[in-house]
């Protein structure tokens, strides 16, 4: 068996649930950075309110995505578990903690709900997203997609869920 074989355990129609959920935190946290910037530039209260909802839903969906990601990652035997998956997990754990703290910072009243700590945490969250998202994609393309095309022992039927 190829040491690269890594297939997500929980999938619908061949698409991992984890992969379906990750766009939510990506969009929410990126959106929160944009609304934070808008608040910092305008001091219009509604922008920090937007940030707070985006952060809340981003954090909730990040937790949900993490749950399925962890199941996928730890349901394969450890010798076949790609190191890149563990890096992806570790970074996202940090991201989750930062985002959680950012929710509490944004719950403050007025200007300091965003400037400077909230905005800084939003920037860090998005930077972490870029790195961990990159690792996640490498995991998916190198270890899942390639395995499916390169493994001569497998028939097309086996690739169906």
């Amino acid at each position, binding site marked *: 068996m190829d040491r690269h074989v890594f297939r997500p355990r929980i999938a619908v129609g061949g698409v991992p649930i984890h992969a379906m959920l990750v766009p939510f935190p990506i969009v929410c946290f990126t959106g929160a950075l944009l609304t934070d910037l808008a608040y910092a530039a305008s001091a219009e*209260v*509604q922008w920090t309110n937007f940030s707070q909802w985006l952060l809340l839903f981003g954090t909730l969906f990040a937790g949900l995505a993490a749950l399925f990601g962890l199941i996928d990652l730890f349901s394969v035997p450890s010798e076949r578990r790609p190191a890149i998956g563990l890096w992806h997990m570790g970074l996202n754990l940090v991201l989750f903690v930062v985002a959680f*703290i950012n929710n*509490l910072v944004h719950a*403050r*009243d*007025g*200007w*300091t709900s965003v400037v400077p700590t909230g905005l800084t945490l939003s920037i*860090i969250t998005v930077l972490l997203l870029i790195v961990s998202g990159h690792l996640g994609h490498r995991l998916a393309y190198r270890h899942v997609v390639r395995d499916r095309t390169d493994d001569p022992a497998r028939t097309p039927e086996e690739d169906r869920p």
Partner: protein
Amino acid sequence: MKRLTALLATAAPLLALAACSRSAEPPTQFGFNPKLPAPKQFLLPPMGIANPVGWDRTGAGAAPTVPPGFMVQAFAKGLNSPRNVLALPNGDLIVASSGGPNMEPNLRPKSFIFQWLMNTSHGGERGAAAGENTLILLRDTNHDGVADQTVVLAKDLPSPFGLAWANGTLYVGMTDSVWRYPYAPGQTALGPGSLVTDLPGGPIDHHWTKSITLSPDGSKLYAGVGSNSNIVENGLEAEHGRAMIWEVDPATGAKREFATGLRNPNGLTFYPGTQTLYAVVNERDELGNNLVPDYLTSVRPGAFYGWPWSWYGRNVDVRVHPQRPDMVAKAVIPDYSLSTHVAPLSIAFLKGGTFPAHYQGGAFIGEHGSWDRNVLNGYQVAFVPFVNGRPTGTPETFLGGFTTGKGRDVHGRPVGLAFGPDGALYVADDAGNTVWRVSWTGKGGT
């Protein structure tokens, strides 16, 4: 990168703070020059939400405590969130039994959580909010210190709170207006009223109690209007006409700003025999257990007291943006700190009557009690001695025993105060659903 290090440097102590700020030092912040610690910003602000259990949980007849020589009686029990009391010259009481207007929209995740937490700390809040906003007449016909007649004078009013009476006219401060009703003491029915003036009410209506009083000659009416937020988190445009005391001509309804920058002014009362208006003010939250002290102050016409840009004079609040150094420079320092988060909502000055000399000329303050503090503060009727017409020394607990000592269970929460013509002090206890009567027995004590 500099940003990152700066952030980590701030985040670490913040986390530590949130974790270990359980014990708050006892407040020593009374009087003219309170010690003001440095402001803090929290991940979780200090909180201690009272849990009202009523007075009968520990056996019928439980009551607040009084100094030696005084007697306390339940003048009326089983009311629905009595907030304020007005004593009439014939000894009758008018009670405003009210709940907040509940029109604050949940614009952020935090407001859902806060709404839920705060609803637990007001005994009758939900019942009253359901529409029972009444004025009730309480009469003690046999003078035994317990009301034996209860008449509903008016109901379904828009969150009535402020009460004043003079020359055959009853004034009621609703949350969005002041109304006048022809009323002679003794009447057991209230005819139709008429609008005196509008006040800022909804939308939002965060601080909804409108305290009112009349000038000594009855020619002017004063109305306190609290802010629409803790610290302008609903935007400055939501604060038009708020955080100030209005001076109203009761004849025409014309009004002008009398004093501004008062975050939530209540207990508007003239010092007896003078033209000096006093108020108690609820200051801002979420800066720490021991910031910012609530205060009692004489209100200087035209003065600005800092909110939102600064507190206690020129202590700048960084949560307000843009900052206004020009306004901070104008901010007046209030007279007398009552210590932090006690939530004072009423003043009754004593001049004459039956209480001993120790209390003459002093102020009784109804302290509804804290939430933004790990250790409960307030939950009492405090007495502030006055010397030469100025508050002096430290406050004494006059009516205590509202806290049970068991966790955050409280029997009740005092709000409005009034001295009756019989010399007794009447206390509205909203969470305890009771009006208390405190009288001097003439035996022992002071």
